[in-house]
């Protein structure tokens, strides 16, 4: 069964460094998302992406964040200058048409 994959599973970085989180969505899906879950809190929407552009972003998704689909298979989330409060589990999701989104296993980002 096709699935969403994410790499790395765990990323440790120092404050102020740039990180890139990578996702490979399911191949025939058209809509892509990033969510995050700070430890002990609920899952929050960050950004949605369709037709090679951002379709919606949350207040969390400020100028430090960017997304890209560089090669038609990968979908990346870049954080330009990480802060301690960026420490969280980041989930990528994709969907084909209406309704269900399929989630990857997540990347745990730890900023020290």
């Amino acid at each position, binding site marked *: 069964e096709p699935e969403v994959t994410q790499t790395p599973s765990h990323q440790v970085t120092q404050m102020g460094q740039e990180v890139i989180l990578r996702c490979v969505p399911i191949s025939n899906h058209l*809509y892509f998302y990033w969510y995050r879950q700070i430890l002990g809190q*609920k899952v929050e929407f960050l950004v949605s992406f369709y037709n090679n552009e951002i379709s*919606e972003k949350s207040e969390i998704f400020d100028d430090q964040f960017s997304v890209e689909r560089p090669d038609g298979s990968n979908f990346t989330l870049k954080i330009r200058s990480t802060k301690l409060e960026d420490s969280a589990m980041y989930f990528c999701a994709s969907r084909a048409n209406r309704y*269900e989104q399929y989630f990857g296993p997540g990347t745990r980002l730890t900023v020290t």
Partner: protein
Amino acid sequence: AQSVTQLDSHVSVSEGTPVLLRCNYSSSYSPSLFWYVQHPNKGLQLLLKYTSAATLVKGINGFEAEFKKSETSFHLTKPSAHMSDAAEYFCVVSDPRGNEKLTFGTGTRLTIIP
């Protein structure tokens, strides 16, 4: 705007007894509703979805949920709990306007007592 309220942060049941996880929603539109499950150190797995068809929705692993518009509820049930059901459960509502971003509840941690 839409939101989801999960009334219990933690539920404990004995193995073999029924499970009830409660969820109430608020939405300005006809909602699509989902339950996702997250096992320890795992990703989010879709259990079931309601998308304006039948109000009683059956999902994987014996779970089901009933959409009750009059009560704005979408409670998750299972007749008989299994040890493998121990996990975090999220009630989720979808924004139907185009990109369908998901709004999650705070989650309910289900513990199964042997």
